[in-house]
């Protein structure tokens, strides 16, 4: 069976945290548990300070098995306010990734 995953174009991630709450709501996770996290990454060049955000999946991401079974998008994918997360097979995502710089693929399962 094809392996699924998430492609995250992290350059578009604004750090709004919607994906994290979407995931918590979907799974009714208790404190400390969540399938995706977003970190702020600050880098400093001589003339400019850069602020980026880096979403990454955790051990609790089940790729929204319940939702995807019925053809729904994972909760984080649907609600990502910057529309920067794509769900699909790793093969498809790898193809997409070639055209999308500054992205990462997660295969949580």
């Amino acid at each position, binding site marked *: 069976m094809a392996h699924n995953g998430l492609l995250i174009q992290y350059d578009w991630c*604004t750090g709004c945290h919607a994906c994290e709450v979407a995931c918590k709501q979907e799974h009714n996770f208790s404190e400390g548990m969540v399938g995706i996290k977003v970190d702020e990454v600050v880098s400093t060049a001589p003339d400019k300070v850069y602020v980026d955000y880096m979403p990454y999946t955790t051990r609790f991401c089940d790729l929204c098995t319940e939702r995807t079974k019925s053809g729904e998008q994972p909760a984080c994918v649907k609600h990502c*306010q910057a529309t920067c997360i794509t769900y699909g097979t790793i093969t498809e995502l790898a193809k997409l990734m070639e055209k999308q710089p500054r992205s990462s693929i997660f295969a949580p399962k």
Partner: protein
Amino acid sequence: MAKSKENIVLSTLWSAGCGSHGGCGCEIYVQDGKVTRVEGDKNHPFNQGRLCAKGLAISQYMYHPDRVLYPLKRVGERGEGKWQRITWDEAYDTIEKKLKDIRTKYGAESVIFCQGTGRDIGGPITFLMYAYGSPNWVQVGLAGHACYTPRLGAMFATQGQYSVADCSQFLEKRYDSPEWTPPKYIIMWAQNPAAGCHDGFYGHWIIDCMKRGSKLITIDPRATWFTTRSEVHLQNRPGTDGAIALGMLNVIINEGIYDKAFVEKWCYGFDELKERVQEYTPEKVEKISWVPADLIRKAARLYAKNKPSAIQWGEPVDAMPAGSVVAQAINHLWAITGNIDNPGGNVIARNSHGVTTYPFSSAELTKLYGADLVKKLNEKRIGANDYPMIKNFRGWVQPDVLINQLETGKPYPVKGAWIQTSNILGGQAADPRRHYNAMKKLDFIVYVDLFQNPTSMALADIFLPAATICEKESFRSWWQPLGVSVKAVNGVGEAKSDWDINLELAKRLATTPIKYNTVRELIDDRLKDGNTNFEKLKAKGCWEYPPEGHNTRPYYRYEKGLLRTDSKPGFETPSGKVELFSKRYEEWGLDPLPYYEEPKESPTASPDLAKKYPLILTTGRRSPVFFHSEHRMIPWLRELDPFPMCEINDKTAATLGIDNGDWVYIENTRGKVKMKAKVTPTSHPQVVTAPHGWWLPETDGKEPNLFSTWEYNINNLTSMGNQAKSGFGGTDYRSSLCRVHKIEGGKE
């Protein structure tokens, strides 16, 4: 027992729950009479399936164990936290009696009607207030009325109507609409749009536009995700935005890169503006604002030479010294470049279909309540007689005048307060201690909200439990589209909607009979302006855009005679043009042209004070997971932003011996407030940035602690009485002086 099937209810968000100004379309999942989750509605053009963190946490907000579910009456002293559950009948009877007594003894004007942020509350609160006969509609403690109204007032004076950056939100096909084009540049002026939907503008529309080619120019004292991606970042000294706007006008006018045809045909007072901006050379503005002159030139040229371009602005503009003047200067930027009501510019924004939910102008108030009533009420409206702009624009009390009146009882005493979804002491008010002292003396205070908070604990005599957006019917016409909110479940506990509560009390208190039996009748009556009704909108998925050719639909309405009441081409201003020299400002005794005013407290204005307090404090930094003082008790959200954090530059922190994560005091002449330090190069070396509205719901709510509001609420460092000449703007929320030091010997 087997669970029944989930049912999905479509609705519109803009009230308690997610809390913000909203407009998101949502799917509310209901099972066995309970909301199980809330998701975005993919078919809703506003958010296209997305929701922010606050929207996704609505179910946790609704069923939170601390939510107040029944009417309460205070049985101990104010602040003792002793409450007794009562019935709605008892609550209504008590309120009716007390408010009638006050009206008989002191006049209806001695009761103030207090709201917080701009969501659907603006409709029901004005409805109840006018029924009762009071003119005093107020956001208590909001110094200089610094939240959108100064910007709205400036736009009303300048161009007759309001404008917002055009991200296709006025068209149902959104980004696919053939008549829309993305702005070439978007100036992000003093706002972090990623945090939510301020002023009804879904922040991530900016990202949508960036993906379609829009480039950014950002004016922000901090480095952010947006400044990182901006072609130009003007990292300015807080409070100097007015100088930057004037400097950009100087460049655009002197280099002749404005839209000459538009200015010639549609603007009034260009020569006067040209003369005025001469003194604001980029070099002079650099000295004021810290922004290099060449960057000001670059920003001005990119904006003016790339049409269409748009400006999206934030609340700090209102809070500037002379906020309505800063807003005027920024308005002039889009006016002289012809970026008005054009696709991808600053499109004229009118309430959808001409329906009024929340009155945004004097004209709407007059339409709903009649010219006679509005005129009569203006005579006693607090602050209206001191400030012609306050008197002639919308129907608000001037909050800095109110606090004096609360204290002195002059020209008449204030005896009662109806406070509805407004955490005055814990978030909204500058100098909350002063408001606490003044409001404690009132004879009678009704508080309508969903949770206890510092304000309800300190002040309420009767607490009425309000419903979240999922538990009520409401309607929304704030810009586009026209929408309804559908009741997915009954009020949790005995919670009732603001509209239900206020209609019931309006019936009991009105001096002339209320024509509506039910809220539905009222909503349908108001929706008549849009040729529709609640059920029709609901059947359509809860939203509708106005038809082609409607005067609330873009573009170029000034050419088509769709903006003026007399149907002539042009703008709804005295001259019929965009007034760069404002006749309305002149009529109101104000300078008709924009100018720069320095913050009262700054290294320039108060150098001696700056020796003792060398850092500039700017407050009100938004969190994407909270709205103002709300949501601190919601576990899914609090986990993401657990502490009040001030941002301080790494090099500055090093000289002060402050490490990342240390607890520090931010201190100025008005007091000190505790926060954790986030030590970061994103902060300017001379600027400290603090979030507002922090209180700790997990700590003791009773006095003197009041949920720790005195310790963590940054507004304890702000003051009242700095209002500008117009009465709008001129506060120290965004620019004052402070020092920061580590709290020795302990984490707390």
